Every structure is written in C-alpha cells, then in structure tokens.
C-alpha cells in the first residue's frame, strides 16, 4: 500500500479506530464548543448564531478606484473589508519617492496622506463595517490615519472595529515588508497595541500570522508553532511594559491558511486552539476567558493554486472554504483563481465571494458546530498535530526563541529549506498536483491563458502624484513640521509613538515623512541573508 504522509510529516494510517484515540480525555482535551480549551471552537453555537465574516483582500491603484471596488463587493454581500496597500505604502515611501517607481498602486492601493484614507473610506460607515488593514512596518501611521478618518466621520472611538495586521515578526520571517531593525520594529508593534487597548477597545491591534510563513514554505505544524511563538513574544512584550495580560489579550487575533489536506487543516486549528488556550491560561495566567480564545481569519493560500488550467483553482478554493468552515473560522478570505497571473479581476473576486457564500448557505458545513469532532481520524490527527506543533515550538526555543531566531536568520533559513523540500516533492510527484505533476493536460501552459487579466492603469501613478502635490500645497506647513519634529523626538525617547503620529497624520504629514522621521532615529534593518 502507498505510504501517505501529512504535510506535517507524520504518516497517515489507512484506517483509524477507538485504539487511536485511547489517550484522549474528553473533558481535558476536547470539551464543549465555547468552553476551555476550545478545541471545538470558541463559540457555543458557532455559525448558527453568527456566520463567519467574509473579507476579501482588496486594494489597487488609487484610493478612489479601491473605494469603488469596496462598494462593488459590499453590494454583493461582502460584510467587511481587508485593505491591500501598495509596496511603497507598506515600506513608508511616498508615491514620488524614486524607489517607488513602477510600484505605485501596483500590488495594492497607494496611500500618501490622510487625504487618501479619507477617499478610500468615503461613503463607507466605519461604525458598521469592520476593516482589516494589511499593514505591518507602517501599521502605526496607517492605523492612526484610519482612526482619524473614523473620527472625522463622527464615529466614537469605542465603535471603531479595525484589525491592523501589525505583525512585524512574520514580516522578517516571510513577507519582507520590514523597515527598521528588530527592536524598534517591536516597539512600534507594542505602541499600537497599547494605544489601541487604551483608546479603541474594539480594535484588534495585532493579527498574528502563520499564513505568510506557510506561503513561504513551512509545514502545517510549523505554521501553527511559529504563529503561537510570535503571539507569545507579543504577550511578553506587553507584559514587560507593565500591562496586565487581560488588558490586551482578548483583542489578539490570528491569520492562518487552510489549504492542503482538509482533515489535517481542521486538526491543525483544533490543536492550535487547545495549545493557545493552555498557553494563555497556564503560562501567562490570563483569567478572562476571552484572553484564551484563538480567534482566526482562515483562508488564503495562493500557493495552493496553480498556473496551469487556472479555472481548476475555483475548485481548490471551494475545498479551502470547506476546510476553513470545518475548522471553525471567525473570518474567511479566499485567493482568487487568477492569483497566479495577476491581481484579482472583479469577476474572480466575485467567484471567491460566491464560493464562501455557497459553502455557508448551501453545503450544510455551517449547520452544526465542529462537525468532525469524535471522528477517530480527526481526534487522532488533532493529537498528532498537537504533538508535532509542540516539537516545533521546542525547536524554536533551541534557536534562542522566535525573536532571536529572526535576528540570526535561523528561522528564515528553515522556512527556505522547507520550501525547497516541498518543491522537490512536487518534482518527484510525492505531493500530487493535478494538471501540474499528474493528469497533465495537453494544452501548453502558454496557450492556456484565457484568464481575464487586471489591466494595470499607468495613469493611476500620475493621479496619485497630483493628489500628493495638492495635499502638500494645501496643508499648514508649519503645523506639519512641528508634528514631525515631535515624532522624531518621541522616537529618540521611550514614550508611546502613537500620540505624536496621530498628530502628524492629522496635520497631513505624508507617510514617507513620518517613516523618515523614525528612520533617522532607528536606522534600517540589515537582513541576515541565508538560504
């Protein structure tokens, strides 16, 4: 019989029975949904009371163009937003910076000043729509702009629901939009968490991501282990500032993928919830049950998709949606079938949204909580994943902890090694991919490009530059300069940077100016290049 392995590396048996779950104690390990240790999910009735939030990742060109796409998706039933920013914005460069050439509005929407964020959310009531901001190195100023837009809309601070990603450690490991060295980068993460916990009680000021690390090549168990290690690092950071764990932990959220083997993915989340609950309760002594809950966006995984016969990706997306719902996602976002070629066309985005809606409304997957519980296979897999995740956590400790592993590049090297191993398994056929390494069609890839490509609009750059010029001309230059001096002064000291950053964004300082004020003090990160 063919040997089959989980992505996490352990073998999968052809049959499971009672003997495989003999070590599982119901009350201790599984419990009831909505109760510690939350193996079965964080809510008692899950989707019967509230369906997962559908939050496609959107952003391109100018804020005005992106605003129109937001409204298009909301008109089709999407109930929350997830904003994609272009690379210059993510790296703190203004649209007229020479380094930004060719990248303005390309992989997301361009933001230079508060005026752009006002355009992006024009006509979108921020007291009723929750918005994720996929921003990390620049999370502090971009979230400050978001808070300022909400304030201008007249929305009370305690009504603002936003999730800046604000997870810089995974940027160093996998996604690459780091700016400053590790320590000042972590200080900015903590400043935003602290400021939000004090003033914006419904914001989720950090979204800890396993997602990007998995996309960069790590295994399922590593994805969860690294995510948990990063979360623990942020908890320790906040405790070191003198905050009590229950002051901020209830608003920590997560972002993970669910592509691959459906049952392994479900087991990964069941094990992860259990481990996280125990870590927060036993290690960090949190007493508020909300602090124990692993709340996660689940979805994504462009690496699940293939360039060959791209329409097949629609089917893969449906399996991801099924896995995410069976895994107990709070929020879902799917990659689009054209992802290997281009940023999503409206058609591809609508299909992804419809996929989630079909899963929710038609498939029955959302009818009852944690429907796979009690399956010999899934409970045994959950235990096996838990063990594997704990082994990976121990391996991070051997690297000196996650922060040190990031500094030395040891963890980046491990992820790259796994990516290479994975690629070799694709080449050997050990991991089958339909129309890629098995059941390969006879249509040459070059001819099979009938996907509608997003046409990048080169005039968007010019429009964005004009907007930036206008804002610079109209602002009170003296007030902007004073505010920027305050940012630099705060960066040199140890006070929370959010107050001066709020002041600077309200004075229409550009993102590039704010980033530079801090860069002058903090310097830039030097990558430990290892492969």
């Amino acid at each position, binding site marked *: 019989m063919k040997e089959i392995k989980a992505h996490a590396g352990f073998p999968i048996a052809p049959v499971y029975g009672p003997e495989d779950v003999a070590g599982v104690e119901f009350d201790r390990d599984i419990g009831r949904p909505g109760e510690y240790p939350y193996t079965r999910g964080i809510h008692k009735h899950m989707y019967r009371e509230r369906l997962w939030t559908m939050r496609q990742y959107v952003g391109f060109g100018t804020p005005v163009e992106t605003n129109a796409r937001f409204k298009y998706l909301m008109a089709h039933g999407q109930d929350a937003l997830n904003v994609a920013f272009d*690379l*210059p914005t*993510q*790296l703190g*460069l203004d649209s007229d910076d020479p*380094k*930004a*050439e*060719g*990248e303005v509005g*390309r*992989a997301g929407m361009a933001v230079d000043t508060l005026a752009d964020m006002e355009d992006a959310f024009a006509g979108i009531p921020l007291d009723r729509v929750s918005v994720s901001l996929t921003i990390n190195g620049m999370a502090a100023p971009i979230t400050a702009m978001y808070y300022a837009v909400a304030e201008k809309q007249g929305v009370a601070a305690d009504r603002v629901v936003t999730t800046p990603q604000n997870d810089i450690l995974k*940027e160093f490991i996998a*996604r*690459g*939009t*780091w700016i400053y060295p590790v320590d000042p980068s972590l200080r900015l993460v903590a400043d935003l968490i602290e400021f939000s916990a004090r003033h914006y009680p419904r914001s989720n000021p950090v979204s800890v991501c396993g997602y990007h690390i998995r*996309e*960069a*090549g790590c295994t399922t168990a590593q994805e969860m282990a690294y995510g948990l290690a990063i979360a623990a690092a942020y908890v320790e950071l906040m405790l070191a500032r003198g905050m009590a764990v229950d002051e901020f932990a209830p608003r920590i959220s997560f972002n993970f993928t669910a592509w691959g083997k459906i049952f392994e993915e479900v087991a990964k989340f069941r094990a992860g919830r259990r481990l996280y609950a125990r870590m927060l309760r036993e290690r960090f002594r949190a007493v508020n049950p909300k602090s124990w809950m692993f709340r996660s966006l689940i979805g994504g995984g462009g690496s699940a998709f*293939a*360039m*060959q016969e791209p329409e097949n990706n629609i089917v893969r997306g449906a399996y991801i949606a099924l896995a995410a719902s069976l895994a107990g996602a709070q929020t879902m976002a799917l990659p689009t079938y054209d992802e*290997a*070629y*281009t*940023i999503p066309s409206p058609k591809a985005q609508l299909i992804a949204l419809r996929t989630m809606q079909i899963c929710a409304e038609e498939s029955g997957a959302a009818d009852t909580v944690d429907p796979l519980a009690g399956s010999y296979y899934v409970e045994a897999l959950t235990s096996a994943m838990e063990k594997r995740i704990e082994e990976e956590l121990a391996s991070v400790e051997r690297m000196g902890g996650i922060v040190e592993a990031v500094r030395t590049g040891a963890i980046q090297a491990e992820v*790259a*090694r796994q*990516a*290479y191993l994975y*690629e*070799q398994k*694709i*080449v050997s056929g050990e991991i089958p991919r339909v129309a*890629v*390494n098995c059941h390969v069609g006879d249509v040459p*890839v*070059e001819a099979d*490009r009938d996907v509608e*490509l997003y046409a*990048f609009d080169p005039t968007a750059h010019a429009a964005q530059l004009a907007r930036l010029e206008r804002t610079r001309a109209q602002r009170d230059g003296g007030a902007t300069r004073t505010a920027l001096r305050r940012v630099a002064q705060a960066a040199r000291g140890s006070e929370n940077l959010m107050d001066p950053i709020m002041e600077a964004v309200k004075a229409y300082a550009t993102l590039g100016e704010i980033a530079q004020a801090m860069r002058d003090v903090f310097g830039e990160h030097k*990558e430990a*290049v290892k*492969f």
Partner: protein
Amino acid sequence: MKVLIAKPGLDGHDRGAKVVAHALRDAGFEVVYSGLKRTPDEIVRAAIQEDVDVVGLSVLSGAHLLLARRVVDGLRAQDASDIAVVVGGIIPPRDVEALKQLGVRHVFPMGTPLPEIVKAFRQGQTKEPR
C-alpha cells in the same frame, strides 16, 4: 558558472528566489543571493563585483518590465552586457516577449518546473545571445 539571484524592487516574496538558488547550488553552480529590496544599481554593482555569468531577477510585484530594463541597461552602461539577465516570477504571458525585447535572455514565468530552470542554466540557454 556563477549566478547572482537577485530581488530588485520592493517586493518581499523570496520563496521562489531561494528555491531556485538552492536548486542551482545543488546542481553545482556557484550561487550568490542578494537578499530583498535591492536597487537595480546595487544588483549591477554586485554582478560585476562577484564576476557572475548570469543574473537571475525574481519579481512578483508586477514591476518586472521597469526593473529588468534598469538592470539590463545598467550592465550595458558598465560595459558588462556579457553578463546575461534572466527573469522569473509572476510574469504574465503578454510580457514575456517584451522582456526579451529589452535584452532579457530567458523568462521563467510562475509555474515553470524547477528541473526546467536548472536545465536551462545547464544547457547555457540563459547565456545564449539573442
């Protein structure tokens, strides 16, 4: 043969670059990896300093035409156009010919099997003059 795998521009996705670097190293090439967010000028300088035969640019942000042009022109300006430039990443089919027009010797769009990339380097296709 010595190869510089480089990440020009702002995009932080280095999975593909590192996988290709690994594979070429395993295949016996001498490989240097630039790290993220290098400017075209820095890449040109590194290619000349390291005396490489081929520069492999990895671009997933969509800015490949501009960045490839800068590197090819930069090498030419330094009298180093004997260093071949190849490009991999999210390259839409419509841009493959445009890249070759710029002087890029070979394009490996996403989905190119790893052995094909290695084979192209082995057979010297990446070095062939256009």
